[in-house]
C-alpha cells in the first residue's frame, strides 16, 4: 500500500516549500494570525508547534499498529494534548515573558488542524523515523511561514526586527499592522505575492513550450 519509499531528505523538505503549511496548505491559521505580531513570537510559536508535531507524530507512528480505526481520532487528540501540556510547562520554565507573550495560544496548539492532519495523513501510515522527519520538516515550514508574516508585521507595525529598532525613534509605526486586521492583510499580501510569482512562472513556462512547438 505504501508507494516507493521516499528519501529522508524529501520527507524533510516537502514541508518547507512545496507543501508549506501556512502558504500552501493554509492550515493552522488561528495561531498564525494572532501570534505573528513580532518575529520572535512567531519563531517561538513555530518551534513550540514543531516540538508538538514531531513528538506526537513519533509516538503515534510507534503505536500505529495497535490503534483501532474507530478510536484513532480520540487517541491522536489525547497524545497531542499531552505534548502540548509538556511544551506549556517547558516554556514557563524557560522564559516567563515569552509565556505571557504567547498566552492562551500555546494550549490552542492542540486545536491546530495542522497537527491532527499530519498525524492522520502521515504518521498513521509511516514508520517512526519517516514520520518524525516529515513532521519536523512541516513544523519548520510552519515556523518559516509564521516568521515571514511576523517579520513584516513587526517591521511595519513597530519599526523593529527581533526587538532591534530599524528606523530610529522618529518612525511613525503603522500600528494597524500589529492589530488583528493587520494579520489578515499581511497574510493576504504574501499569498497574493506567491500567486503573482506562480502566474509569471507559468506563463514563462507556457511561452517556452510554445516556442518549442513553433520552432
Amino acid at each position: 500500500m505504501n508507494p516507493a519509499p521516499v528519501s529522508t531528505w524529501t520527507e524533510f523538505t516537502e514541508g518547507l516549500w512545496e507543501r508549506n503549511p501556512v502558504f500552501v496548505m493554509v492550515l493552522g491559521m488561528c495561531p498564525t494570525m494572532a501570534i505573528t505580531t513580532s518575529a520572535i513570537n512567531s519563531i517561538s510559536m513555530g518551534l513550540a508547534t514543531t516540538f508538538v508535531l514531531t513528538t506526537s507524530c513519533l509516538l503515534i507512528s510507534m503505536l500505529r499498529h495497535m490503534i483501532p480505526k474507530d478510536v484513532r481520532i480520540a487517541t491522536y487528540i489525547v497524545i497531542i494534548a499531552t505534548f502540548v501540556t509538556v511544551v506549556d510547562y517547558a516554556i514557563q520554565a524557560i522564559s516567563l515573558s515569552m509565556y505571557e507573550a504567547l498566552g492562551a495560544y500555546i494550549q490552542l496548539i492542540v486545536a491546530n488542524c495542522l497537527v491532527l492532519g499530519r498525524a492522520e495523513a502521515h504518521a498513521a501510515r509511516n514508520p517512526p523515523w519517516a514520520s518524525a522527519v516529515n513532521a519536523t520538516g512541516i513544523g519548520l515550514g510552519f515556523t518559516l511561514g509564521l516568521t515571514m508574516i511576523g517579520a513584516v508585521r513587526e517591521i511595519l507595525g513597530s519599526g523593529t526586527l527581533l526587538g532591534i529598532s530599524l528606523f530610529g525613534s522618529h518612525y511613525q509605526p503603522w500600528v494597524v499592522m500589529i492589530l488583528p486586521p493587520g494579520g489578515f492583510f499581511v497574510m493576504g499580501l504574501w499569498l497574493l505575492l506567491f500567486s503573482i510569482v506562480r502566474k509569471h512562472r507559468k506563463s514563462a513556462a507556457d511561452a517556452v513550450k510554445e516556442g518549442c512547438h513553433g520552432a
Partner: protein
Amino acid sequence: MSTEKLSSASPGTEPGAEDTPTTPTFAMMRTLGIVSAICGMIIVGSYLVTLPAAKANRRIATERAVFKVLPEAKSINEYISLPGGVIESAKEGDLPPGAVKFYAAYDAGGKLSGIAAEGSAKGYAEAVRIMFGYKPECQCIVGIGVVSMRETPGIGDKIQVDKDFLANFESLDVKLNKELTALANKVETVRHGTKANPWQIDAITGATVTSRAVGKGINDAAQLLMPRLLPKLEKIKEKS
C-alpha cells in the same frame, strides 16, 4: 486483521449500518487505557521536572517588579493580610479567602523601606496588572510598574513610558480617613490636564481606558490593603 466478535456495546455502531466489522470494545478500551497511561506519565513527569524552574522564574519576575518600584530595597519578605488585619508570612499554594498578598521591602539595615502590592483592573483588552510601591511615612504611592498587560500597542502601552503619566505616581496620596476604615479620598483618573489634587491621576490623552484601568486597579487594591495594614505596621518594621 478482521475482528471476530461484534460487541453490541461497542460505541459507534448504528442499527443496520455498515457491514464493515467494528472493533471489539475490549481492543478500544485497551488502547485508550495504555495510551492514557503513557500520556499520564509524560505529563506528570514533565510537570515535576519543570516546576522548580517555573517557580524560580515567577519569583524573579516578582522581585524585579518590587525592586523597580522601591529602588532602595535590598530584600523582600512576602506576606499576606487576612480579613481581620492579621499579617502572616505568605505560604505556597492558594490564598485563603479574602487574603491580600503584599511585599515588605527592607533596606540594607533591615529596616522597612516600603510596601509593594499588586492591583489590577480591566483595561482595553484584558486585565492590566500594576505593581505599586508605598511608603508608610508619607502614606503615598511612590512608583508603579506594569506587571502584565495586553493593551493597544502604541496607545495603551504608553503607560509604561509616558513620563508625564509616570510622574503622577511619584507621590500619589493614599492617606487613610480618620476612622482608618478606607482611603480618605478615592484614587481616580481624571482627564489630562485637570489634575487638582494629589490623589488624582492625569490620564494619557487618547489612552483614557488604559489610564483609568491603572487608577482603578490601584484604588481597589489600596482600599482593601491600607486599612488592614497601617495599624499593624509595627509587626513588620524590622526584617524578621
